[in-house]
C-alpha cells in the first residue's frame, strides 16, 4: 500500500480493538469518534453475558491503552465529511468539533460541573438523569475530560456566562477553540460505527412512554449500573421496588424482519441483575424462539432458569392498561393469558445507526435492505465492502455479540496487514 496509515471510524469496542492491533503492527492510526468519549455501547453495560464480567472493567484497560499509545491519534466529537481516492490512497476530510476544554490541561476533577446553570437530560443515561452543559457523560468515561455542549450552554446562546472557566483551577476551559476541518491521508478505512436500538415508541402496543414503568433494555442497563443514575438501585418511577417484572424479547423483530441475535442472552442476563438486587421479585421472560447459539450460551440459559423465572412463549404480545397499573397480554396459537406486572423491560431490535445512509454515501459503500452496511460476500468476505480498502466490522455490518465484533475487528486488521506495505 502506498499509504500505510489507517482511518478507523468509531471508538467502540470493535474500533478500539482494531486501532490497538494496527498500532501494534507499527501503523499510524487515526481514530475518529462522533461522541466525546470512547467505549461505545459496551461501557453502558454493568455486566456482559455470559460470564457476567464487569463491562467497564473489561474495556477500561483497552481505553486507557488507546489514550497512551504513540501511534494512535484520537479525534473525539469528530465526523467524517468526505472520502476520496482508493485503496492505498484515500484522502479523508473530517470535521473535528471544538470541545472547549483543553485535553492536556484538564485533569478531570469535575469542579466545572457544579456552577454550570444548565440542566438537560443525559443521553448517555438514556434520559434517566440530568447533566450540565459542560459534562462527562458518566463517571469513568475516557478521556476523562468534559466537553461543552454548545446547543445548551448559555454562553454559546448569547449570555456572558463563564462560571465553568472560573471554577477551573487548571485554565483548561477555552471558549476560543474552533471547529477544525482536517485532511487525513490513509491507505485503508475500518468502519466500526456500531448500532442503534429501535425506539419502542414506534410500536405502540408495547406501551412504551405510555406507561412510566416500561423501560428499554438500555434504560434498564443504566438503572442497574453502579455508575448510573440510581447507582444501581432498581426502582419504579414512584420510588418503590418492583415486585413483578416482565422481560419481553423480540421487540420489533417482526417489523424489522430479522432476529437481532443478542437480545435473548441479554434478556436472560437481566434475570441475574434483578435477582441480585431483589431476590424475591417475580420474573417472566416472554420470548418467541430462544436464540442462544454456540458452546456457552445454553449453559447460561439453564443456569438462569434455576434462579426462578417463568419462560413464557408468545406469538403476539401487548402491554395493556389495568385498573391498577398494567399487564402483559400474550397469545400463543389460540391460547393466551394476561399477567399484571409492576415493570416491563423491552428488548428492542438492533438497527443501523440513524446516520448510516449518510455515512454510506460519504464512504461510497452500499447498504443492505435493512440499512446495515453491506458486506462484499455474506459467506466468504463479511468484513470487506463493495469499495476496495474499506472494511466494516461489528454491529455496523450485522447485529452481533461482543466476541463476534472483536473477531471481525481483528479480521479487518488481518485483511489490511496482509496487503503488505
Amino acid at each position, binding site marked *: 500500500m502506498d499509504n500505510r496509515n489507517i482511518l478507523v471510524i468509531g471508538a467502540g469496542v470493535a474500533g478500539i480493538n482494531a486501532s490497538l492491533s494496527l498500532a501494534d503492527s507499527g501503523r499510524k492510526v487515526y481514530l475518529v469518534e462522533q461522541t466525546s468519549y470512547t467505549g461505545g455501547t459496551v461501557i453502558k453495560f454493568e455486566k456482559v453475558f455470559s460470564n457476567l464480567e464487569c463491562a467497564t472493567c473489561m474495556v477500561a484497560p483497552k481505553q*486507557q491503552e488507546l489514550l*497512551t499509545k504513540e501511534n494512535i491519534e484520537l479525534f473525539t466529537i469528530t465526523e467524517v465529511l468526505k472520502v476520496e481516492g482508493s485503496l492505498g490512497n484515500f484522502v479523508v476530510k473530517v470535521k473535528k468539533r471544538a470541545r472547549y476544554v483543553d485535553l492536556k490541561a484538564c485533569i478531570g476533577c469535575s469542579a466545572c460541573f457544579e456552577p454550570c446553570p444548565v440542566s438537560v437530560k443525559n443521553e448517555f443515561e438514556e434520559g434517566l438523569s440530568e447533566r450540565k452543559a459542560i459534562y462527562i457523560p458518566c463517571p469513568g468515561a475516557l478521556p476523562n475530560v468534559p466537553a461543552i455542549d454548545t446547543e445548551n450552554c448559555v454562553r454559546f446562546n448569547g449570555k456572558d456566562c463563564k462560571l465553568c472557566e472560573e471554577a477551573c483551577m487548571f485554565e483548561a476551559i477555552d471558549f476560543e477553540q474552533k471547529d477544525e476541518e482536517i485532511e487525513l491521508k490513509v491507505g485503508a478505512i475500518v468502519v466500526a460505527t456500531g448500532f442503534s436500538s429501535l425506539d419502542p415508541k414506534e410500536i405502540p402496543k408495547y406501551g412504551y412512554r405510555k406507561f412510566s414503568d416500561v423501560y428499554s433494555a438500555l434504560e434498564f442497563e443504566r438503572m442497574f449500573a453502579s455508575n448510573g443514575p440510581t447507582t444501581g438501585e432498581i426502582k419504579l418511577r414512584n420510588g418503590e421496588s418492583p415486585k413483578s417484572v416482565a422481560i419481553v424479547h423480540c421487540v420489533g423483530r417482526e417489523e424489522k424482519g430479522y432476529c437481532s441475535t443478542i437480545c435473548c442472552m441479554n434478556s436472560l442476563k437481566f434475570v441475574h441483575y434483578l435477582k441480585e438486587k431483589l431476590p424475591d421479585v417475580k420474573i417472566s421472560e416472554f420470548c418467541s424462539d430462544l436464540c442462544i447459539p454456540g458452546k456457552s450460551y445454553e449453559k447460561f440459559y439453564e443456569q438462569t432458569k434455576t434462579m426462578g423465572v417463568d419462560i413464557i412463549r408468545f406469538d403476539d404480545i401487548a402491554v395493556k392498561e389495568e385498573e391498577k397499573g398494567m399487564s402483559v397480554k400474550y397469545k400463543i396459537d389460540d391460547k393466551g393469558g394476561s399477567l399484571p406486572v409492576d415493570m416491563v423491560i423491552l428488548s428492542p431490535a438492533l438497527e443501523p445507526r440513524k446516520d448510516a445512509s449518510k455515512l454510506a454515501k460519504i464512504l461510497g459503500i452500499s447498504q443492505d435492505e435493512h440499512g446495515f452496511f453491506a458486506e462484499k460476500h455474506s459467506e466468504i468476505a463479511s468484513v470487506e465492502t463493495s469499495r476496495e480498502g474499506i472494511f466494516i466490522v461489528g454491529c455496523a455490518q450485522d447485529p452481533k455479540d461482543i466476541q463476534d465484533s472483536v473477531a471481525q475487528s481483528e479480521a479487518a486488521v488481518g485483511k489490511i496487514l496482509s496487503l503488505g506495505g
Partner: protein
Amino acid sequence: MEEKIGVYVCECGPNIADNVDIDRVMKTISSLPDVDVVERHKLLCSENGKKFLKESIQKHGLTRIVVAACSPKQHEVTFMKVCEEAGINPYFFQLTNIREQCAWIITDKELATERAIRYIRAALRRIPFHKALVKKEIETNPDVLVIGGGIAGMEASLLLASGDRKIHLVEKTDVLGGKVKELDKLLPRMESSLDIISQRIQEVKQSEDIKLYTNSEVEEVLGFLGNFVVKVKTGENKELELRVGAIVVATGFSMLNLKQLPRYGYGQYDNVYTALEFERMNIDGKILRKDGKPPKSIGIIHCVGREERGYCSGVCCMYCLKFANYIKSKLPDANVTEFYQDLSIPGKARQKFYEDTKAKGVNFIRSNEVEVMDKVIKYKTEEGEEKTSSVDMVILAPAIEPSGDTAKLAEMLRISQGDGGFFQEEHPKLAPVSTSMEGIFIAGCSQGPKNIPESIVQAQAVAGRILSSLIPGKKLEPEIKTSEISEALCIGCQTCLEVCTYGAIYFDEMKRVSVVNEVLCRGCGNCVGSCPSGAASVKHSTTTQLHQEVVEALR
C-alpha cells in the same frame, strides 16, 4: 550503597490540597530518617511538573523516588517515563495514591492527612527493596504452522503467507477443503460450495509461500511464542522438524455419532440419513430412497443431540432450511416437515431465508421430543400431546462436536478445553482467537460451533493477531514483571506447574527445580500463592516488598 530517597507530593490543584494538609505531610515526611528530599508541586503531571521532577531528581542525585499523587492507573507510566529521562531505572519509583484512595473519599481533613502520611511511609518502607528491571528482547521466527486444511486453515494460510513469512499447512487427510467440501450449496444464495472451496484450494496450492503437508500430523510441539519447534509426521512417513513463531489450530469439528442416540433410528431403519449424507446425495444430483424412488414425505429433525451435548450447535437450523430448499427445487411435490425446538436464525439475512422457505410450503412443527420409527416420526407437541407423522425419508441434524483429536492436541499444545470440550479462547469477549499460550491461536469450529462466515472471520482475525504481533525482523519484548523461582528455595514439588495458566513454568529434571520461562510468564502470581516453600515471587511485587509496605501501612 546508601540510597538517596526523594518524596514528591502532588497537590493536584485543589483535588488533594483541599482535603489533605500538605504542609503537615511535608513536615512529617521531612522529619523521617533516610529521606533526603521532600518537595511539593501544584500539578506534577503537567509539563511544568514533569520538568520540575526530572530536574529535581538529577540535581539531588536521587536513587529512589516516591510520588504521592493519583491512582497508578492515571499516571504511573507518566512518572516512570520521567524517571527514565532523569537517568534512573523506572522501577526505582513508587507511586502512592493519596487522591482516589484518600483525598476524594475521606471527608475529615485531619484523617485524610494522617492517611496520606501513612501511605507515603508505606511506600518509603518498600522502596529500598526495589530492584532495577530491564526490558528484554528476543529474536523471533515469523513463520507459522497451521494445523488443519479446512476453510479456516486455508484462509489463515493465505492471509499470512508472504515473501518474508512461510506457512506450513499440515492436513491430516489427503485433501484440502475440510467439511465445506462435503456441502452441495452455500447459504443463503445457494452458490455451489465446490466452486468456492476449489478456488481457495487452488490458491493455497499455487502459493509459493505455503508448504503443504497432506496425510500429515503434528506429533510434538516444544518452545514458545516466536520460537516453536514442531515435529510433523508426513504422508511419506518421514519425520520433519519445523521452526515457527506461531501456531494456528483450525482442526474443525466432528458430527455427533448417531449410534449414541438410538431413538433417532439411524442405522436401524432405511432412509434415515445424517446431514452430511444428505449433502452428498445432493452433490450427486438426486434425492432418492434406498429403493431408488424419490421420497414423497420427508422429515427433517433439528437439535439431534442438543440436550445430550448441552449446547445449541448454531448452524443446524439454517442448513435444515437449506435442505428443505434442496428438496423443493428437486421434488416440488414432496411433503417436507421440519421438527425443531427453537429456531436459531440470528442476524440480518437469515429470517428472510426462513420466510422464503416457509412460503414454499414447508411445514414447521415445534417439539422437544422426537422419535424415529419405521416410516413414522413420533413427536410430542408443546401441549404434551403425542402425535405421529408418516415419512419415507428422515434427515437428522446432529450436534457439532470437537474433532476427535482435540484432547490430544490440547495436551500437546498446552492449551485448555472449555465448554463442550472445544478449545478454550483466552477471553470469551476480547480475545476469542488467542489462547492462554502466547503464540498459539484457534480458529473456526475447533473453538466452538459456528457457520462458514464466522469461521472465516476467525481465521482472518488470527491473521490479524499474528501479523500485528509477530513481525519479520522485529524482536519481541516480553513482560518485565514476570515471576522468578529461587533455585535455592525450590523443593521441586511442581505445584506451580499445575497452577500456571500460561504454561510458563517447566521443571529442570537435572537440578530438580521449577524454572520460569520469562517469555511466556505474564506475572499473574498463581505460582507465588501456591508455592509451599516461598521460592516463587513476582518481580516488583516480591513478598518482601509487599510485606514491608503492608507492615508500615498497618502500623
